C-alpha cells in the first residue's frame, strides 16, 4: 500500500499511514501506521527504500512521530497508551524507553527544540461508550507542537480550542498562558513557522487559520491576557511523568521561562478550498509556503502575499493543488535542508500509503 517516487512499494505499510516526519537533516523519512510499525526511508538514486522497520513494543496504531536531539531519537505515540522512544545506535534504532502513564490512546508526541521535553497527549476515556458521552463533553487533544526556539508548547483539541503552555518559574509548574477559540470544530493540527512568530492551524471546519504572536506592548494594540492561573492537570501530569522518566534516562531538563507572554491573534482565515476536514498542515521553513491536506485527497499550497497596510495582516493565495492520493491524507511534511528553492520535497501520508514528491514553488 505504499507508493514512492520510482519505488515498487514492497516494503510499504500494511495499513493506513498516519504520520510522516523528516529527520532534522532531511536524510531519513519516518512513517507510522495502523500496522503498528514505524518505517524509516532513505533515498537511493531515484528510489525511496525502506531502511528499517521498527516494531515490537507497541501493540496499537502508531499515530504520531517526533524526531529529537539531532535525529538521534525518534518518539512514537501509540493508541496502546504508550510512547516509545527509539535511539540511534551503531546497528540501527533500538527501543530506548517506553513512556507509560497514559490511561488511553496517545495521539500526539513532540520533542521540544531543546530536546529536553517530550509532550504527549492522549484521548479522553471510552470515547464510544454511550454513558460517557451523555455524562460530559469529551476533550481529547489531537496534536501538540513545541515552539522552534523556546520551551513554549501549543496543543489543539476536539474541544475546538488551541492552548499555549509555558513553565511557571514561580511554581516550578506549567501554566496555560493563552487560549484561542476561533475554530468551529475539532482542531486537527497546528504548526509553528520557522522563527516561531506564527502558528498555522487546520481542522474539521475545513479552514486554515494563521495566528501571529504579538509581544507585550506591541504597536498593533492587541490586548494582552492576564497571567492565567488555569492549570492543565492532564498536561502537567503528562509532562511530569515524561520529564521524570527522561531525567532518569539522562535527559536533564532545564526550564527556560518566557520573559513575558505573547498574545496570539488570528491574522488570516482561509476557507472555501478544502471540501472535507483538513488533517494536516506544514510550513516550509525555507520558502514559507504552507501545505494543507485532508479528507478531500488534495494537497493545497498557499503563499503569503502583501501585507495589507490598513490591517497590518497578510493575505494568502492558493499557488497550487494536486491529488497525491486516492484516499484521506493524514499527514504531510516538507523536507528540511533542501537548498533548491525552486523544487521543494514534500512527503505525504494517507489511508492508501506514503508518497514523496517534488513541487515547484
Amino acid at each position, binding site marked *: 500500500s505504499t507508493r514512492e517516487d520510482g519505488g515498487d512499494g514492497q516494503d510499504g505499510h500494511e495499513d493506513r499511514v498516519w504520520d510522516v516526519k523528516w529527520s532534522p537533516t532531511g536524510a531519513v523519512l519516518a512513517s507510522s501506521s495502523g500496522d503498528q510499525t514505524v518505517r524509516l526511508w532513505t533515498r537511493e538514486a531515484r528510489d525511496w527504500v525502506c531502511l528499517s522497520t521498527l516494531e515490537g513494543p507497541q501493540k496499537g496504531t502508531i499515530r504520531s512521530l517526533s524526531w529529537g536531539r539531532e535525529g538521534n531519537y525518534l518518539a512514537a505515540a501509540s493508541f496502546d497508551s504508550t510512547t516509545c522512544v527509539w535511539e540511534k545506535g551503531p546497528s540501527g534504532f533500538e527501543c530506548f524507553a517506553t513512556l507509560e502513564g497514559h490511561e488511553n*490512546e496517545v*495521539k500526539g508526541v513532540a520533542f521540544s527544540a531543546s530536546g529536553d521535553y517530550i509532550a504527549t497527549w492522549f484521548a479522553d476515556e471510552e470515547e464510544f461508550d454511550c454513558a460517557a458521552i451523555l455524562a460530559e463533553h469529551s476533550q481529547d487533544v489531537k496534536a501538540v507542537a513545541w515552539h522552534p526556539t523556546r520551551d513554549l508548547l501549543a496543543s489543539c483539541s*476536539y474541544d475546538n480550542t488551541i492552548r499555549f503552555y509555558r513553565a511557571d518559574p514561580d511554581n516550578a509548574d506549567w501554566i496555560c498562558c493563552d487560549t484561542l477559540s476561533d475554530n468551529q470544530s475539532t482542531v486537527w493540527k497546528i504548526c509553528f513557522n520557522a522563527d516561531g512568530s506564527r502558528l498555522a492551524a487546520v481542522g474539521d471546519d475545513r479552514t486554515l487559520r494563521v495566528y501571529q504572536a504579538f509581544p507585550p506592548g506591541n504597536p498593533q494594540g492587541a490586548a494582552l491576557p492576564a497571567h492565567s492561573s488555569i492549570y492543565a492537570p492532564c498536561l502537567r501530569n503528562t509532562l511530569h511523568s515524561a520529564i521524570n522518566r527522561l531525567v532518569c534516562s539522562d535527559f536533564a531538563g532545564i526550564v527556560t521561562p518566557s520573559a513575558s507572554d505573547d498574545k496570539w491573534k488570528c491574522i488570516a482565515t482561509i476557507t472555501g478550498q478544502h471540501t472535507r476536514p483538513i488533517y494536516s498542515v506544514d510550513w516550509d521553513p525555507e520558502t514559507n509556503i504552507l501545505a494543507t491536506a485532508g479528507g478531500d485527497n488534495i494537497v493545497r499550497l498557499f503563499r503569503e502575499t502583501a501585507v495589507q497596510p490598513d490591517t497590518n495582516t497578510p493575505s494568502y493565495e492558493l499557488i497550487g493543488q494536486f491529488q497525491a492520493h486516492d484516499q484521506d491524507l493524514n499527514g504531510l511534511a516538507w523536507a528540511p535542508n533542501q537548498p533548491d528553492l525552486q523544487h521543494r520535497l514534500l512527503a505525504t501520508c494517507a489511508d492508501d500509503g506514503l508518497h514523496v514528491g517534488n513541487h515547484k514553488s
Partner: protein
Amino acid sequence: MALENAAPRVYGKVQERVTLDNDFDDDVIDPFDSREIFDLVRHINDPEHPLTLEELNVVRLDQILVDDAQNYVRVQFTPTIPHCSMASLIGLCLRVRLLRALPPRFKVDVEIFPGTHATEASINKQLADKERVAAALENPNLKTVVNECLQLDDKYLD
C-alpha cells in the same frame, strides 16, 4: 439493566431487491445506489433488541444518499427515542459496516437524521472523527460489541 425503550415499535421489512438480467452481465457497470447501501446496513442488529435496524426503522431507504460519480455516501439514521444512549454505538456500527464493505474511493458520512436525537451535534462530531473511530476499533471490548451487531443472522445468509 432495564431497557430504555422496552417495547419498541416494530416495522415491516422491504422486499428483496428485484434482480434484472443486467445485474449478471459483467459488461454492464452498476453504479452504487441507495438500495445497495440500504441492503448493506439494514440487517445490522440493534445493540439492545433482537431486531435489525430496519425492523426498528432506525435506517430507512429514503434517508440514504449516494452519489457514485462523486464517490460520496451519506447515511442518516433515526434513534428509536431522542435520548437513546445507544445512538453512538449504532452510528459506529453503520460506519464500520460501510468502511468494510464499500470500495475505499467512497467518502462516507454517518449522521443522526436531523432533529431526532437530543445530542445530535455531539454524536455527529464523534462519528465524523476518523481517529476516534480507528481508536475505538482497537478497543477489544468495543470491537466485540460492534462485531456482534454486524454479525448476520443465519436467516440472511445464502
